[in-house]
């Protein structure tokens, strides 16, 4: 599984960088995240409830940051364990670039693979599930950071 994308976030780079290292923000942005714990500067552990097609499970997620270049980029090593549901492993490269008017352009690319039941039953669905998780993550991040988002949302209660 491979995918990439970019998002324009309307706050300055340093803020985005801080959020991407903040377990509280991360927990808020990962849908289904039930807990997020910072084990060290560069290590997080989370439990996430997720569903890929017919496979539904609580996954233990270990996140390790490497190649850290504040406030520009890091590489995120992701290890997902779902016991009977299988496992996932991936690398996400995240890069932040300053964009116009104090906004930030976030680029990411993910390469990963799954195993066990996730691959057996969910293989066809894993790409779309991963894309959805990424989209949800960034729109949540966007919301969490954008002072305008709150107002927008209350104006558009959908």
């Amino acid at each position, binding site marked *: 599984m491979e995918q990439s994308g970019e998002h324009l976030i309307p706050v300055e780079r340093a803020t985005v960088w801080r959020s991407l290292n903040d377990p509280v923000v991360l927990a808020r942005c990962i849908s289904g995240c039930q807990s997020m714990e910072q084990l060290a500067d560069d290590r997080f552990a989370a439990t996430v409830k997720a569903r890929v097609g017919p496979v539904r499970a609580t996954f233990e997620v270990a996140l390790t940051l490497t190649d850290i270049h504040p406030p520009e980029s890091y590489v995120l090593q992701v290890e997902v364990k779902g016991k009977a549901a299988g496992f996932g492993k991936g690398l996400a490269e995240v890069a932040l670039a300053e964009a116009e008017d104090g906004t930030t352009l976030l680029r990411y690319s993910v390469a990963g693979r799954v195993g066990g039941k996730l691959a057996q*039953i969910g293989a066809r669905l894993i790409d779309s599930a991963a894309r959805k998780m990424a989209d949800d993550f960034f729109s949540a991040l966007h919301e969490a950071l954008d002072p305008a988002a709150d107002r927008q949302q209350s104006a558009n209660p959908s």
Partner: protein
Amino acid sequence: MSTETGIGAAVKRREDLRFITGRGNYTDDLNVPGQTCGVFLRSPYARAKIGAIDATDALQVEGALAVFTGRDTATDGLGDLPCGWLVKSKDGSDMAAAPHPPLAVSQVNYVGEPYGLVVAESLAAAREAAELVAADFEELTPVVATAEAAEASPIHEGLKDNLAYDWELGDEAATDSALATAAHVTRLDLTNNRLIPNAMEPRAALATFDPASGNYELRTTSQNPHLERLVLSAFVRIAPEHKLRVVAPDVGGGFGSKIFVYAEETVVTWAAAKVGRPIKWTAERSEAFLADAHGRDHVTHAELGLDGAGRFTALKARTTANLGAYLSTFGSAVPTYLYGTLLAGQYKTPNIHVQTHGVYTNTAPVDAYRGAGRPEATFVVERIVEAAARETGRDPVELRRLNMIEPDDFPYETPVALVYDTGNYQASLDKALHLADYAGFKQRRAASETRGKRRGIGFSCYIEACGLAPSQLAIQLGAGVGLYESGEVRVNPTGSVTVFTGSHSHGQGHETTFAQVVSDKLGVPFDDVEVVHGDTGRVEFGLGTYGSRSLAVGGSALISASEKIIAKGTRIAAHMMQTEPTNVAFEEGAFISGNQRLTLQEVAFASYVPADYPPDLEPGLSEKAFYDPENFTYPAGAHIAEVEVDEATGVVQLVNFVAVDDFGHIINPMIVDGQVHGGLAQGAGQALLEHGIYDANGQLTTGSYMDYCMPRADDVPDFVVDTTVTPCTHNPLGVKGCGEAGAIGSPAAIINAVTDALGTEDIAMPATPEQVWRKLSGL
């Protein structure tokens, strides 16, 4: 004997009543007091070292009773699961067999390999507990692709490479020189796709242990319960045979996949004694996909030489067969003795050489699946013959006819170790051509074209070898068991008959067919004959049902036993009629001498109530027989497929299928037709739909009915099936076996039709719309 129920009659099956009313007894339908539930822990990795396994949390779950791992079974001295056929490499060395513990101990070698068993009061509790077992794995690089496995680094510690054996058959030098001087050589690279058997009833086991007697009882989905018991006793060493009863109750299809002795029933039986309670395990379909033995998975390069007149001069095949991670029960024999020996097909090819590399990969073990080796051989022969006809501008039918073994060539000895006893290949081909209206094909093709469809026709003249035999030869070639069958015919005091057979029925209808055979032979009413099978506690011994052997071998044993009944009955009757046995004839259920007549019933009664009885005879009228066939039987036939390919979508529709088979004499034509239909649908599945795919990491990506495409009702047409008859020359019934023919002949016929429609030889199975569409689009 009444022709309505005797040999040759389309008797309605007696087993049907329980199935159509929901009163079958499949393993999962059975329940015993105190029963617990088992769930297996399965590797999510294709290849990994097993680290610590922590069951602390799992055992906290309410209702959880025990968690066992490979270390427990190893400590208890449980033996490995054996491979029953020792194949030797061409240099004379034994195959390299990797140890196959029932539960993985230090390393897992395919996704789905069991490494532990969780036992709990309920299925829900067992599943919950299984979720909580924490196992550490250290992932290793897997070897997956068939073609590359031999060169890759060995997956098993202690083996020097992934080559289990390098086997050959035939004269290589003669074949090579014939190819070198051939007027034309056709070359073809072929893949025989991996299939997942998918009997509709998933495997299951229900094991009990009685501490008072020390007796084990295992009810399981098996095609051969006696073999199961033998292996669990002699190799896995769970309990001696007299302490272990194995029952295969109603079994919902097997197609080979339930021949083998698997880890699950082994471990569950062992664990029943550990837990002190009965344990039931039933596979989910997802587990069946991962852990049932798969079928086929060959990669072959073949060359066929022809002389100027179109006569075949030589056939050479180089095959790599994926055996999976371990050698399954008969896995080693399938791509060798059941494959290479069939490469002569129906033809007089004088020189044949085959070489098979059996390779280990980090995938589920591969073993016999309906046809086992013979579909692979037929695919090679019939694809390359069709391609040769096209390359040399000959009609594929005429090229076949030119090369076919003639009816008076029999017995015919092939260059690959078989002696065909009888056959008439021209007759089945002629009949098939007529039924398929070959003459009208051109018109049908033109009509299809006007609808934007390309029509193709394909042929397959297959041969198969059934009822592996004789035992002595098979054992010389490495078989670990004999290949006879046993039967017992017991005439009860009041004249009804109970028949015990070592064959097993899981859809084939033995309860009906075998009763027909015995009722016909003994002249007792069909309804008075009961057939007992599938229970080591009731049937003395048996080698089970596979390789279309039941009737040819098991049925013949019943004939022998019946003959002994008649012989003994004759002596009793002679005594009663005060004459010599030589003066007594047995006709239609009665012993006759002059105008005296005694029915079998009367004689049976006299044998159990021996008032007036020959002094030198034992009372009773029950006889056993072991029948060891002297040769294989050789069913053969002609299959013709017609397909329509939609140019816009690449969808291949199988529009006509004609199968004319020679099964020798037929006991029940209704059942035989049904066997052919089922085989044809499986063959159509292989050709057009089914494919077991592992990704590069060894993950099975076709692990459910969402991705593994099973043939459904609207994927296949009505089949036209018919038969021709040349009776088998060496068994008393003249029968040959019909269970696998459909799956053996059809894939080649269908792919020959698809390649005909598309005008290219380069189509792999399954011919999916995507593949065909790419070909049509020149991509």
